[in-house]
């Protein structure tokens, strides 16, 4: 059992999400920085679909009531007093106080065996807007008690995860995209002008998406008929600002999408902090596939 002594700013149970239910209005969900979450599970020897804890900005304080093997990855946690990106054995009674997350925005705590909460529509992830999943249908609160499961596949890894196989954790960010799917909603030079702009991350961000300002750039977009949306879609709002959609995104939307962040770079968006700058660069589908294979190769290599 793990007791939530302090939930931190916004802490929830996540796994690889529940893609495939978008036609019912249900977002795919899952860890926003899917790469850091995958590494955390790998380090403690969990199955890839084990549920873990996602902390945002300021992490939780957790008390382990029995001994456990845990790993922390993702955003840096300078006050945790606990080396990240490696598995640790902790004793019964150990309290993990994750503290602030910076640089980076989201950190992951994996526990060997996974967090045991019921599967809802194929996933243990919290769907906050639907108030289901994640065990309690909401972010964690003080006093919640989390059971540890048995979704292990291999022994815990004894070495630290190499720095050479991690993603950048601080801005300025360069994020790879493929233009579209609504090129007709913009003038032909719009994407080129966007990619020449250092976009600014605003404080308006959550698991659904993040607003970015485009200093010095005014993009005009024609409205579109509501269409399905994807994680990574960069919507242009009537005011000319951007909304980049993340894991819990609304499944449909009426703002046109100028470009879409590739899967391999979604973790970067998930770690960008308010005040950071982001540049979007077109890489094309072949390069997107290569960058995906690079990350999945890192995860397989050490399996």
């Amino acid at each position, binding site marked *: 059992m793990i007791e939530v002594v302090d939930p931190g700013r916004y802490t929830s149970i996540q796994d690889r999400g529940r893609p495939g239910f978008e036609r*019912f209005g249900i977002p795919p969900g899952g860890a926003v920085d899917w790469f850091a979450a995958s590494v955390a599970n790998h380090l403690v020897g969990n199955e890839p679909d084990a549920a873990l804890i996602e902390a945002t900005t300021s992490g939780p304080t957790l008390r382990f009531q029995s001994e456990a093997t845990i790993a922390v990855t993702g955003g840096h946690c300078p006050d945790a007093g606990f080396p990240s990106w490696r598995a640790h054995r902790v004793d019964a009674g150990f309290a993990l106080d994750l503290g602030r997350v910076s640089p980076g925005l989201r950190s992951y705590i994996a526990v060997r065996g996974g967090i045991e909460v019921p599967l809802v529509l194929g996933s243990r992830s919290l769907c906050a807007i639907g108030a*289901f999943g994640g065990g309690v249908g909401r972010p964690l609160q003080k006093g919640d008690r989390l059971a540890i499961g048995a979704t292990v596949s291999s022994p815990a890894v004894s070495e630290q995860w190499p720095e050479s196989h991690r993603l950048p954790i601080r801005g300025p960010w360069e994020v790879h995209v493929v233009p579209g*799917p609504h090129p*007709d909603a913009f003038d032909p030079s719009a994407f080129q002008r966007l990619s020449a702009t250092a976009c600014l991350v605003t404080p308006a961000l959550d698991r659904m998406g993040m607003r970015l300002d485009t200093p010095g750039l005014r993009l005009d977009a024609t409205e*579109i*008929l509501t269409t399905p949306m*994807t994680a*990574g879609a960069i919507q242009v709002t009537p005011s000319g600002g951007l909304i980049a959609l993340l894991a819990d995104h609304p499944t449909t939307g009426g703002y046109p999408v100028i470009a879409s*962040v590739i899967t391999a770079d979604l973790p970067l968006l998930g770690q960008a902090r308010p005040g950071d700058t982001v540049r979007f660069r077109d890489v094309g589908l072949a390069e997107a596939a290569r960058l995906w294979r690079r990350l999945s190769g890192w995860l397989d290599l050490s399996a």
Partner: protein
Amino acid sequence: MWRVAVAGDRALLVTLGETIDPSLLGLVLALDRALSDQRPAGLVSSVPAYASLLCRYDPAITDVTRLEDVIRQFEGRLDAAIPAGLVTEVPTQYDGPDLEAVAHKTNLTPADVIDAHASREYLVYCIGFAPGFTYCGTLPDELVVPRLASPRVRVPTGSVAIAGRQTGIYALASPGGWNLIGRTDLRLFEAGATPPVRFKPGDRIRFVPNR
């Protein structure tokens, strides 16, 4: 001509038109059915909405060229007719916080707004935005009003709302910018049910005022 566009590195967006039109929805649903019958390699799932269909694929199994070829083979060969189904009644308490304001904007009495809204059958065009949110159309001309200038932080579960030419039902409490004219006790979303939603695109509904 359908537009097939890249939507990130794992999906194609097929756009069949740009208007709220039963025959475009019919084509979207027919394409969705045709693809789910054919099960082309690498197609993972699809999401219909109004006049477009998002097709998610696994790039390890297929690519955009192959998938677009599969999609294009249906262009011009689908029946746009939506299979006739039962009309589901949605019992509605017309006591929404925006009913008076809508009446004022449309130069109608609240009773006229209710009569106009409940006077016709609606087609479900999309389940989207949030779990179970049901987009229907189209409203009678006299009920067309814009969205609220600033959205509400929390719209209650079951709210019946209007905006532009659309009417919708908030299946769950969520933020929202539509004009709230009533509410229903009909449950539209249940995570544990199969399927988890009450309605799907192509269904027909009628709002019935509670007496």
